[in-house]
């Protein structure tokens, strides 16, 4: 026998959807992988965010590793220049978003990606400026990111980054 006191939705029934929070804050770490993305991240950092934190790994692309003495800890930093420990940062994240600009070389993607899979943290990669870049340039950046991202987005404009972070409640 049916005992349901409400049936499939009508506008009137929709009013009774419980109005209580159904989430807890999440920590989204946004990592700029190259210089242009770092500029973008610095601009975004000025906004108000719920749980977004902005980091940069652009130093890595500027200063390629030399031999075995290279330390993976030395190149991840926050935007004020403080060095951050990669694995600790990743371990404290619910979601890592890597940002690159089309055509840039982003060697840090592999190391961050590896750290994310080690810590079982979901990764998203955003490539900005996909419209303007040549196919070859885009493919170069894409190939470095693709193995590490569960979701990869090629966006025409950098305005997408803020919209995406808001949609994710970052």
């Amino acid at each position, binding site marked *: 026998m049916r005992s349901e006191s409400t*049936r*499939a*939705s*009508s*506008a009137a*029934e*929709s009013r009774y*959807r419980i109005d209580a929070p*159904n*989430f807890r804050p999440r920590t989204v770490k946004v990592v700029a992988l190259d210089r242009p993305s770092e500029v973008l991240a610095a601009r975004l950092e000025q906004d108000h965010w719920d749980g977004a934190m902005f980091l940069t790994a652009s130093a890595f692309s500027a200063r390629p590793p030399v031999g075995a003495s290279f330390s993976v800890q030395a190149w991840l930093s926050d935007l004020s220049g403080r060095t951050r420990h990669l694995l600790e940062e990743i371990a404290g994240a619910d*979601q890592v978003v890597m940002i690159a600009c089309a055509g840039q070389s982003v060697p840090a993607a592999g190391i961050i990606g590896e750290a994310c899979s080690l810590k079982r943290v*979901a*990764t*998203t990669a955003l490539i900005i400026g*996909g*419209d303007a870049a040549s*196919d070859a340039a*885009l*493919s170069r950046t*894409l*190939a470095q990111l*693709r193995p590490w*991202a*569960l*979701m*990869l*987005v*090629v*966006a*025409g404009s950098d*305005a*997408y980054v803020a*919209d*995406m972070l*808001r*949609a*994710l*409640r970052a």
Partner: protein
Amino acid sequence: MLRKEHNDLLTKTGPGTPGGRLFRSYWLPALLAEELPENEGPPVRVKLLSERLLAFRDTQGRYGLIDEFCAHRGVSLWFGRNEESGLRCPYHGWKYDYTGQCVEVPSEPEESGFCTKIKLKSYPLVERGGVLWTYMGPPDQEPPLPEWEFALVPPGHSFVSKRLQESNWLQAMEGGIDSSHVSFLHRGELSSDPLFKGAKGNQYNLRDSRPVFEVVESPGGLYVGARRNAENGHYYWRITQWVMPSFTMIPPRGGHPVHGHFWIPIDDENSWTWSFDYHPVRPLAPDEVEAMREGRGIHVKYQPGTFRPLANKDNDYLIDRAAQKAGRTFSGVAGIAMQDASLQESMGPIVDRTKENLVSTDNGIIMARHRLLRAIKNLMERDVAPPGVDILHQRVRSAALILPPDQAFKDAGKDALSVRPGVAHASV
């Protein structure tokens, strides 16, 4: 999560709304041509973008789409007599032609010319590919007629249906670009539906239920790519097209016809889900058409005499809990179309997007909203025609492809993603 103001902008499409102006930039499917099968046949009530209209076919076979209500005292012209090149209101005999122009007011002396002072709002209505299309925007900005491939193939190559969806258009459309639900909700249909089964690509789908996604902006909207592993380090790609505001094309499977949708607002709480199947290089086979009529694939069975699905919210979509438990269907609802519609309608007529918790795999949806909002802004502030109006944006195809691991699919699949007359879809 989407802010309430943005949700309102995207979901409200009535006259005078920004979202309504967006939809009024395009040719939209209004009715099936078969709904007006003969000259001087009965008129059909049409609500589109929250406007009540009446469609009819006059003595010469011209299609009219006019304000539903008589300018005299507001009677619905649905009761009208379709005779001698016009529709006559049965109350006091005022008569209108297919452009809404009043051509006769029997109470007034003919010489007075009074009828020339009366005109009902009307929109153009044009047949193409078995669909009657209308454009509801400013006449001086009317774009060229639509060039979607399914509407241009020879008769017999396509099958088009529509069904009533009792929800806002956006939550329905978002289902069309939400590739991550396919591995759950529709997992049973890949091997059972006559319009899907047997394709080689299905094996990749079934072997790898956790695809990786790539969302790429296209000129008219988005490519949503789902990637699975294939042989020799290659990837099996399924690339869905979304063209603004609400056209999607699903990637093909083997040699089956390819299909897709339009989601068109009736009002803010109801929409038409249009579903098309076509094959660019061959007529549909009788058994394929039969299956489509039977409601297989992306089509549905109807309540007799209506476009309302047989499984609907009043009968709980005929949910079969035993089939759900046994895994014959994932949700207990039968058929791909109603599996989608039941869940989308269950969200309520306009889902409250402030309560969502989106995740990374929802980027297709996030990007679509982002582009729609941007298009609305550009249209409202700078009169920029939105993407999808340009017929080049309409000449697109979905594709299923095997590609090497390091290439951008919009690059490697360039040919496959646009219309190539006389060539079949790229499919696996």
